[in-house]
């Protein structure tokens, strides 16, 4: 089994767990309070608002063979890959405005920055960027994979039960279109990284398992309580 197949297996399981968790099913079935839809939208914003920064980091650590792929991804995030492109952070702001949550914007930006600060300040577990890069890569790419498989369902859910118009859902629609390709490219990049940095299989799997040990989709799009409930921890 290639290392990307191993990673894809984890992504698949986590995506399924996300789409089948109570918190998501309640949203999708229109059973949640309006506040739960608002919280979900705000969490999506906070999770992805800094994505270009994470892609910039990945570009630094990616092997030469994969640099162009990540560069393309980064330019797309910034909305400069084509003439009439949209910066993804702007699409996320459109989501917040469309949901009538603009009054939360200052708080959301600040929370996203705090989250990034925590990530940066956490002591490093690994000795070099080789291991750290692989760990960060599999976590960042996990969202590409999940969104490729779930963003249409999420957009439809927000349209049906939160009444969001298409102009607010461009970020999700865009990901459902392009992330199938991105997800495949991401897996290719993971294989390239594995080969370029001479990981052995057990080492790579240990790092991947540590990086993906919690379902970040449930944790970030909902909260730690939903994550605990999905594991029957609370």
């Amino acid at each position, binding site marked *: 089994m290639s290392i990307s197949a191993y990673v894809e297996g984890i992504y698949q399981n986590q995506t399924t767990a996300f789409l089948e968790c109570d918190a998501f099913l309640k949203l999708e079935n229109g059973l949640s309070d309006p506040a739960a839809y608002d919280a979900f939208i705000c969490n999506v914003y906070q999770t992805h608002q800094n994505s270009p920064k994470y892609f910039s980091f990945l570009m630094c650590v990616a092997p030469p063979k994969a640099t162009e792929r990540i560069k393309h991804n980064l330019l797309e995030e910034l909305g400069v890959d084509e003439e009439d492109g949209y910066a993804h952070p702007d699409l996320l702001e459109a989501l917040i405005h469309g949901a009538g949550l603009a009054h939360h914007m200052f708080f959301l930006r600040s929370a996203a920055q705090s989250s990034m600060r925590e990530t940066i300040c956490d002591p490093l*577990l690994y000795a070099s960027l080789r291991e750290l890069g692989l760990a960060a890569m599999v976590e960042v790419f996990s969202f590409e994979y999940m969104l490729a498989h779930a963003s249409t369902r999420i957009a439809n859910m927000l349209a049906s039960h939160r009444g969001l118009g298409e102009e607010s859902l461009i970020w999700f629609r865009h990901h459902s279109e392009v992330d199938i390709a991105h997800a495949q490219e991401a897996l290719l990049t993971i294989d390239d990284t594995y080969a370029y940095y001479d990981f052995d299989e057990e080492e790579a799997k240990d790092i991947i398992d540590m990086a993906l040990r*919690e379902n970040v989709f449930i944790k970030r799009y909902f909260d*730690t309580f939903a994550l605990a409930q999905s594991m029957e*921890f609370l």
Partner: protein
Amino acid sequence: MKIIKLSIDALEIPFIERFRHSLKDRTFSDSVIVRVETDTGHVGYGEGVPRPYVTGETVHSVVQHITGVLWPQISNEMIHSRSIVELLMRLVPLSNLGENHNAARCAVETALIDASLKGDAIGLHDILPARLPFVTYSGVITAGSPKSVYKRASQLKRIALNHVKIKVGVHNAIECVAAAREALGEQVVIRVDANSSWSLKEAIEILHALNRYRVSSCEEPLPAREWKQLAMLRQATSIPLMADESLLSIEDAQSMVDHQAIDLFNIRLSKCGGIGPSLRIIDFARKNNIGYQIGAHVGETAILSSIGRHFAAYVGDAQFVEGSYGTLLLTEDIARTSPRFGHKGVGRLIKGHGIGVKILEERIIKYSVLHLDLMP
């Protein structure tokens, strides 16, 4: 300064993964956080970790003891950072009518220390100056199958931990330690913790078998306070024995020495009643040539992680240090900057006023399942 308000919050912070040992299966942290406010406007945070099977305390008993016994003792007293630890040994009683209230005491003591240090704009490192440039932490592996132990040991090897403790039971202890040794290689120091789960006969047999895996110590092999049996086991094995659940007080320490029953103490701040009582046990250990480790309770938050860091750096001669797992176990910690250890288990020294970490009140509120305010 005077304490004008004391708040208690019992937290339930979910874990990332289940943590098991022979006495308990945990999925969330259940720390009790004490927050004190002074008449000078300073706020201090403390933490206690009630464990019914260790100190006999529950969240409920901790709340009751703080409310009924400790709060009346401190609410009208002047506190100051100079000699604060000694002052609190007098002000905050260690036990009450023979019952053990160490976690409650630890929570109150550490909150008062934090507040008083902040009041004088100094840090815990000023009254407990570090003798080490950094603190090196052990990893801990939850009880499980040999396969799961191998996997976790292999992960700990990736982050280059030099000391690893394995939680073991009766049935597969030897296989689990063998798996860990295979994954970790020969250089890593392995300890085992039976959490009181073995009989004397089982302990002798298992420790004999574990000799080949070069286990450096065995923690709490027998039911707590079976001093005579512990002494017999000590005679029967060459693996040093460490007391944990058996060691709650200086009296316990004295009993073990009197029975020649122990080689090492596991001193955990909450279990032993806070900084003052823990320092007394360490002093006793040194005088009696007993080695010790600074331990931690599973699920401690940034408050006890930070205090534990200061404490371990100050005492300087602990053989092993545990704790500071932070978000390796908790889905979220309660400090702005995590005091979690990093590569090789290294935890940097913590500076700043008080205990040196900025506590996020919104996280305490988020995870609080019980809140109580006390005022004079």
